């Protein structure tokens, strides 16, 4: 908060951000890069595969430019003081994702097994919907604190979203994880992506109210502040739900994401390290416990420990085994430091989910170590801008919501990228913005929309103090 530009004529002397730069022009300049880089990448793919600039280049460039422009105008109009980096970074990732999805559409192998072909136009449509959703969030969510009112409705909504895939006839088991629902005529939806946001709203609202009780009423034991038994209730409930997700939807990633998000928010709300210790112990106990009797989770762990064995089993036609983990590792290794160049790799060998869960492997092969490091840093920047927003927010609800969403985003990136790169067992989630899939694109644009709203509120110059109603009543005597 700078006060150097204070206008002397104004009497608001404490917070003088009247002339504080909105940074909208910075955002516009960055957006230009975020559109031009994917357009070049698109041309690059076309030249590598067909030897000519792709015919759709102009419409693709215009389309992406138009979408970015709409998003920018929305921010300029409805959130003028928002963080200038979030929108360009998300646009860049989305644009690059589109290029690589289009690149995989060109793969004869994926076409012949029905895994690609017309994914890119659809993803462009999802992107348009996502950006529309983003603008709608900015228009209708004038103040993020409004969400506080929906704390318990959010809890209910989140539970419904999480349980939907288990409803018979609605849920769909895709590649072993039951995290999808099928809507006849519309396709499939991953409600977990939306549950992420709704749960963050619930946790933020709940923790804001309960944080004092959770933080202060505790006993000290071995250097740790132990919470009272009854305060343990909420964390136990969330832990239990995470375990249920793991058992019934067999998705380690979603389970880890929700529990991790809760622990982060709990820690921020109470400032008690003991919660983190508890959280880690509970997630470890839960994961190990479930892994002992859930064959799908066990198999994922086996595939992680020995991807080569898993590959050989799948080649021998043993059911339930997948060559994907090993194929992804080969894709990364074959990319090396600088990659093969866009359009020149063979990441389509991953076959199933090459353009969704495993899209990072294509980036790894074709853009190499350099490209992946840049992409990871872009994700890192988005997360850090989100945490920065939490730091700048003036209200505890906004702080908690911003850190919850950013933390969930960071965990998701870690779980997916770590899974594809063989750092941790593979889960059924996708890279935000880059992977093919409508739910993911829509939900993550909404997430960025909320972060932008919070950052706008945080950076907005404080309005002149409202005249005190008491003062008004005592000073102004109105004759009736």
């Amino acid at each position, binding site marked *: 908060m700078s006060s150097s530009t204070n206008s002397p004529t104004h009497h608001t002397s404490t917070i003088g951000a009247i002339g504080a730069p909105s940074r909208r022009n910075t955002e516009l300049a960055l957006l230009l890069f975020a559109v031009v880089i994917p357009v070049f990448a698109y041309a690059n793919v076309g030249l590598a595969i067909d030897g000519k600039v792709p015919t759709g280049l102009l419409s693709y460039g215009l389309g992406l430019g138009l979408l970015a422009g709409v998003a920018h105008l929305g921010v300029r109009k409805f959130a003028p003081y928002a963080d200038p980096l979030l929108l360009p970074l998300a646009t860049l990732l989305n644009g690059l994702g589109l290029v690589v999805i289009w690149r995989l559409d060109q793969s*004869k*192998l*994926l*076409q*012949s*097994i029905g895994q690609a072909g017309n994914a890119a136009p659809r993803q462009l449509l999802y992107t348009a919907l996502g950006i529309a959703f983003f603008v709608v969030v900015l228009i209708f969510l004038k103040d993020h604190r409004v969400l506080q009112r929906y704390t318990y409705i959010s809890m209910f909504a989140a539970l419904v979203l999480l349980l939907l895939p288990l409803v018979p006839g609605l849920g769909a088991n895709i590649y072993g994880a039951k995290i999808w629902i099928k809507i006849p005529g519309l396709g499939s939806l991953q409600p977990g992506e939306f549950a992420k946001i709704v749960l963050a709203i619930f946790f933020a609202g709940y923790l804001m109210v309960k944080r004092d009780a959770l933080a202060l009423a505790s006993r000290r034991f071995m250097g740790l502040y132990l919470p009272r038994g009854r305060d343990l209730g909420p964390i136990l409930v969330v832990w239990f739900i995470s375990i249920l997700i793991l058992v019934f939807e067999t998705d380690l990633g979603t389970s880890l994401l929700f529990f991790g998000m809760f622990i*982060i928010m709990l*820690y*921020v*709300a109470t*400032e008690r390290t003991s919660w983190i210790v508890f959280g880690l112990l509970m997630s470890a106990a839960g994961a190990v416990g479930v892994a002992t009797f859930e064959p799908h989770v066990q198999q994922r762990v086996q595939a992680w420990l020995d991807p*080569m064995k898993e*590959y050989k089993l799948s080649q021998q036609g043993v059911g339930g085994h997948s060559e994907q983990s*090993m194929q992804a*590792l*080969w894709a*990364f*290794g*074959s*990319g*090396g*430091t600088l990659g093969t160049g866009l359009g020149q790799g*063979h990441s389509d*060998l991953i076959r199933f989910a090459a353009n969704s869960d495993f899209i990072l492997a294509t980036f*790894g092969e074709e853009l*190499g*170590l350099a490209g*992946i*490091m840049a992409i*990871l*840093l872009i*994700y*890192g920047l988005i*997360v*850090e801008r989100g*945490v*920065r927003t*939490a*730091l700048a927010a003036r209200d*505890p609800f906004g*702080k*908690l919501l911003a*850190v919850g969403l*950013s*933390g969930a985003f*960071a*965990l998701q*990136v*870690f779980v997916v*990228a*770590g899974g594809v*790169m*063989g*750092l941790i067992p593979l889960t059924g989630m996708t890279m935000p913005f880059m992977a093919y899939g409508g739910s993911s694109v829509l939900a993550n644009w909404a997430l960025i929309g909320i972060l932008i709203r919070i950052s706008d509120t945080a950076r907005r110059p404080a309005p002149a103090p409202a005249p005190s109603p008491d003062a008004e009543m005592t000073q102004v005597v109105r004759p009736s």
Partner: protein
Amino acid sequence: MNKPLRRIALFCGLLVLTLLLRDNWLQYVKADGLKDDPKNRRVTIARYSTPRGDIIVDGNPITGSTETSTSGLNDLKYKRTYKNGAMWAPVTGYASQAFGANQLESIEDGILSGTDDRLFFRNTLDMITGKDKSGGDVVTTLNEAAQKAAWNGLTKQGGKGAVVALDPSTGKILALASYPSYDPSTFAGNSTTTDAKAWQKLQKKYDPNDPMLNRALRETYPPGSTFKVVTAAAALENNLYSSADTATDSPLPYIMKGTTTELKNEGNIPCKNATMRVALQYSCNTVFGKIGSDLGNAKMLAEAKKFGFDSEQFTPVRSSASVFSDNMNSSQTALSSIGQFNTAATPLQMAMVASAVANDGKLMKPYMVDKLQSSNVDTIAQTEPQELSQPLSSKNAQILQSMMETVVKDGTGKKAQIDGVTVGGKTGTAQHGVANSENPYAWFLSYAKLADGSSPVAVAVVIEDSSANRDDISGGGLAAPIAKSVMEAVINSKK
């Protein structure tokens, strides 16, 4: 709330850092291993993305490449073809889209597919000039006429067998034939119907004749009487007998030391106190068994090792190690010295024995790749002949030559005689099976010497199994004519 927020920021930063470290591990430290992993499909795709370089014999390619139609599931553009594939299979090995590659096709894969570092400059130049990457050629030492003679001889004979011919003065492999054989072009593609069926049919499980076994390099047989050449060399080198024509101290019948078992000869032949020349001429088991026993296990083993026994040869295609055992007692040594008991040799090994004798005692390292060329016939690597060892002195080698020449002139190897050429040789009939019940192996090893004293070729022939009746089988009868035709082919091609 700001202190925990800063810590969360740090934690998220650590998550990203962990991913960055993992990526460096994967794409930098482990990259080459993953990239070149033979199971990584990209290796196969690269191998068949351009026409493969050729394997060349006498200036003509014996391999080729043909473009196939690529589609979604068939991502390999070029398919290997072979000319006279069955005859050359022991040399080339195979390069199959579906089943990988072996022997020369595998060992020189870097050159043939153009990925070898030694082609880097060439490839970079091609990239700048816009030419496609192209593989280099492997020029072999083989002699087409000799190979044909060997192959035709084996085919006509019809039993399992192998022929190896060497140039004694350099170690160049001139012929390398194995029968029955297989045509690698039948499974060069990746069709699940034709190629996979052809491959399956060739497996030992389905074809008891095991046509994919390279008998010339990878099968060891009891060498039988042909091993007596090694025993004679050991006797000369260790000064047990210093000439071919001094009478040996050889009783008949001969009871092996430490036993009551008599070592018998085949038929009634003049072996009592025979000279080594006569003993080799008639193939006396008693004389050479006693020589081995007299010299002892250690000296026999040392001599056998000098001829290349007990070690693998890399031609560069690996050959199995031939066997002469250690820690044998006197009677076992006697049996081993006439090529029975544990003694076993590859056809390549016995050709090396003949070639060392013919080359005045010097054993040259056998090799089949003369040079590697880039696609524009620049030589990338040239193999220089290399001396492996000297199993016997020049003087003793000449003594042994005169003995082997007697075998062909007056003894069991008459069928290998060639007009105007001095031929030295040794027959062998090795028994095998429980109580020698199975058909014996017929061996013949020989060399040819021209009028100027030079020796252009040494050959070993083995015929494994014959439907002919047991008494008819002998090295002289079955194997010697094949050796003769191979030697003639080499001599004629030199003219």
